[in-house]
């Protein structure tokens, strides 16, 4: 949307709003030099995934302000320009926007964030065009294998750091050990790519750790009736429920679970995919207090973002001040994207040389807002793993917001401090 793209009539409404912002979409740091490093940032900023992109505008401005004096690499000072493009939450659109960005704006590097629907098409377009690309916030398996990655013949231009689906078992083991339960886990997994991947990998792993899993079977997304699954979990006496739902399905499931008495028997309701944002919890009302989730970043992470010059607390507070909304995990996760990017540009010696930048990424170790990102020791070439911490949504003791996210387990990130003990689920908190 930084340039003319084909606009279908149905998109017009969305575009009309964005058009007002268009002149400001590219954020150029006032540089006194000839050479400018152009950073293309593709993300979902409207549509169903729009909440993931809420922090982007503010982050891009804060980053540009921080780098306003230019950045010195290899004895030369470069200006920095960030060009934003919106996927409108659509993978096809993401692909198109990335191609248009590469062809029209000639970025030196592209970054993208949040869900495989964003990271994969953007990375594919960059791989095809030979532009370095760094992505985050999508299970790395979905990024690597979902794009047909081959460890023997890895991607040349595209790099990804995120949590992995394989981490869920140790992560949940740490979180669920915090409470005394009968270790019977009800698994609610839809019939989609994520659901089936989790079914075949996570269930055996959890059973190996001594949990007894009850799989309610693959159901279709957007189901409006979960009563059979709920009765199945009830009958088997499950005290832990682990759900990987399409996010809008979760409130439907959990309301029916309360209606049919499952919520009253469950001690831990562990969500993945859903439950990342306070807005989702507010829509659940009373039923939201005590739901457990996971986080890839938190306001109280003992980390900071070198590229923005802010600590985690400052990132969260800055986001709240700029948007008037409660902080989410996105400012931290996306700040890490800038951190990795700046480290890669610095290590390349010549940020205008795309091959040098990609080469630097391959062995990069960078301190970021989500912790250390280490591409040298990743599970696959071009992949770095960052940790998840266990969280629980509780009634905020004070403050303007209703829900507060507490860190309840840190098995994968022992350096992150716990902020509260995991409490058994109870309706009303």
């Amino acid at each position, binding site marked *: 949307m930084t340039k003319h793209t084909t606009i279908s009539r149905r998109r017009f*409404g969305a575009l009309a709003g964005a058009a007002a912002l268009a002149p400001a979409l590219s954020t150029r740091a006032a540089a006194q030099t000839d050479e400018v490093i152009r950073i293309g940032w593709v993300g979902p900023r409207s549509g169903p995934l729009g909440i993931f992109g809420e922090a982007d505008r503010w982050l891009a401005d804060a980053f540009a302000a921080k780098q306003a004096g230019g950045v010195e690499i290899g004895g030369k000072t470069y200006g920095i320009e960030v060009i934003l493009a919106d996927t409108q939450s659509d993978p096809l659109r993401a692909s198109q926007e990335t191609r248009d960005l590469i062809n029209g704006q000639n970025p030196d590097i592209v970054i993208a964030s949040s869900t495989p629907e964003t990271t994969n098409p953007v990375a594919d377009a960059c791989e095809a065009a030979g532009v370095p690309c760094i992505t985050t916030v999508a299970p790395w398996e979905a990024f690597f294998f979902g794009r047909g990655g081959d460890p023997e013949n890895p991607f040349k231009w595209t790099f990804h750091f995120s949590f992995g689906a394989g981490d869920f078992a140790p992560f949940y083991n740490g979180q669920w050990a915090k409470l005394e339960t009968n270790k019977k886990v009800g698994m609610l997994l839809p019939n989609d790519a994520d659901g089936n991947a989790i079914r075949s990998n996570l269930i055996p792993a959890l059973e190996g750790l001594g949990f007894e899993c009850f799989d309610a079977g693959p*159901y279709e997304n957007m189901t409006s009736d979960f009563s*059979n699954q709920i009765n199945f979990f009830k009958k088997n006496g499950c005290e832990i429920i682990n759900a990987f739902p399409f996010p809008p399905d979760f409130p439907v499931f959990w309301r*029916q679970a309360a*209606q049919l008495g499952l919520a009253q028997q469950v001690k831990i309701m562990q969500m993945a995919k859903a439950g990342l944002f306070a807005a989702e919890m507010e829509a659940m009302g009373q039923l939201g207090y005590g739901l457990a989730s996971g986080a890839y970043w938190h306001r109280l992470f003992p980390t900071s973002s070198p590229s923005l010059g802010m600590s985690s607390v400052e990132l969260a507070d800055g986001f709240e001040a700029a948007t008037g909304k409660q902080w989410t995990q996105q400012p931290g996760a996306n700040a890490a994207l800038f951190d990795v990017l700046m480290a890669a540009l610095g290590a390349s010696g010549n940020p205008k040389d795309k091959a040098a930048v990609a080469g630097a990424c391959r062995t990069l170790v960078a301190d970021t807002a989500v912790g250390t990102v280490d591409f040298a020791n990743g599970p696959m070439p071009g992949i770095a793993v960052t940790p998840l911490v266990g969280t629980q949504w509780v009634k905020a003791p004070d403050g303007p917001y209703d829900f507060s996210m507490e860190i309840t387990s840190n098995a994968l990130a022992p350096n992150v401090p716990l902020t509260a003990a995991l409490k058994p689920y109870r309706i009303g908190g």
Partner: protein
Amino acid sequence: MFDGVLQALLQGGLLGGYYAIIAAGLSLMVGVVRFINLAHGDMAVLGAMVTITLTEVGGVPVLWSIMIMLPAMALMGWVMHATLFQRAMRGGFLLPILVTIGLGAALQNGMFGLWGSNTRSLGASIGELSWASWILPGGIILGKLPVLIFVTAVVVIGALHLMLKKTKLGRAIRATASDPEAAEMCGVSSRQAHRAAAAIAVTLAALAGVFLAMRGQVTPYSGPAQLIFAFEAVVIGGIGSLGGTLIGGMVLGVSQSLGGLISPQGSLLAGHLVFVSVLIWRLSRDWARDHGGWRASLAISAIKLRRRLTGGAPAPDRAPSSKGAA
């Protein structure tokens, strides 16, 4: 196992209340106006979207939003019939179908343009009602919302029945349904009767949409699936019969619920299978009636089958023609 089945029967029966409400409007249109509105499901979603917007953006309490939305949708139904459906009906058999398919697409894309593709729900706006329940002796659980929807269905269908039987408008609608020309000669305006029926049908669709948004979620593209459920309930219950629609809805709900007990993916499939079975049963019943009863028609079928098995594949023109082969 037993209480699982009992619980599934109850949940399915209550779910049938929702199907009955959305099917009642369709049944009225098919039975009375002889008009198939393929945008019926989209109108349900539109009703839900308007209610959600009034509640979330306008800050209007849910009940008031519904009270504002229903008359508006009734008016829309009236206007739609006066301007669109009535003309389409004059254009023969195919035109109404094309017009309502187009209307459905326009509604879907219009809603997408206005509200985006997000899934929306009224669940958060109705507070405890969305999840509260009564626990009966024996561990049977009845959700308050499903019970409310079912009771509404019974009341609405009962009221509609009384209206058709007892009021002047009802008599006009029924007279028009059985013979429009004779009704016109007796001073009944069939146009007015049809428009009234369309207004009622759209109102019922919108009410069903609100209930859908309360118990689940809606997107601008949720309509066609609801249309299929409505059609199935109408066909199972018998076209044009309001009481039958309630039963049809419950049969559909119970079969989905029992199908879900067998396999999580079995629930929709079971509903469709019951629908197809009922349809086949009806068609073969009618065929049998025209061929001297079940026994005679079975004999005809058996003869035809034997001929096909033993005689290879006889050319149709050489096969002795029987009444059944026609």
